[in-house]
């Protein structure tokens, strides 16, 4: 068994109004110095040893992320 983390983020060129709203709210909280916020998704998968790296990337690219608008990073910790 392994724990796999997939982090999905909007591509840099895609406007992220949700992240901007979070950044705006930080200002209202009285916090200065945060110049940008981008919001993504974090997935944690428990997989057995039969699931190889290639399959994990298929999972990420075909379901967890939409390659048109998002990038992803797969991290496997044994």
């Amino acid at each position, binding site marked *: 068994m392994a724990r796999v983390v997939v982090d999905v983020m*909007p591509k840099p060129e*895609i*406007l992220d*109004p*949700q992240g901007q709203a979070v950044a705006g709210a930080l200002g209202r909280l009285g916090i200065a110095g945060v110049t940008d916020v981008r919001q993504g998704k974090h997935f944690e998968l428990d997989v057995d040893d039969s699931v190889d790296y290639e399959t994990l990337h298929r999972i990420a690219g075909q379901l967890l992320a939409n390659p*048109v608008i998002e990038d992803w990073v797969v991290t496997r910790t044994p």
Partner: protein
Amino acid sequence: MITFPGTLDDADAARAVRYAGAEAVALWHGDHDLRGVAAVVVPGGFSYGDYLRAGAIASLAPIMSEVVAAAGRGMPVLGICNGFQILCEAGLLPGALVRNKGLHFVCRDQRLRVESTATAWTSALRNSQEIVVPLKSGEGRFVADAATLEELEGEGRVVFRYVGVNPNGAAADIAGVSSVDGRVVGLMPHPEHAVDPLTGPAREGLAVFESVLRVAV
């Protein structure tokens, strides 16, 4: 008309199909059966609660593998709102629909310009004709990479464009696009809500459903 868990506009889409003079057939997301229909409408709503991404889970429903196969054989397919999102997620249409630029859910009677009448769903409209149909979406901003946008414009596959206001920040004011063969069309606004003055602005949306009868029967 396909119904997924969370579909809202299947009844209105069925009504629009009947108004156009065709028979509306209910299709179920969990079936591998298109029941012999001549065309498919993927209606709006919040299929599977929009979990993961709007349309992402629905694009993998059993009925969608049948729709993708049928579209490959040239069957006309129309995706409205959430249906457009589903067709993009299923790979039948290019691009993606993301959160509105202004963050707000937008609900308004929206003016559109018909940019292509060379599709299965717009032949009863006129080029450059302007129609008003309701728009109601929170994730309606059409995006695609520069090469895809260039291809869509160059091949005349932008079908509808927002006029007056761009309500969601969509690239190039794009409200709807088509597949290469013009048989698959997706748009964010709801032509099925503009088929009866009793319940919507005029009836300028009806022509979309009348169009497909020219090619599907």
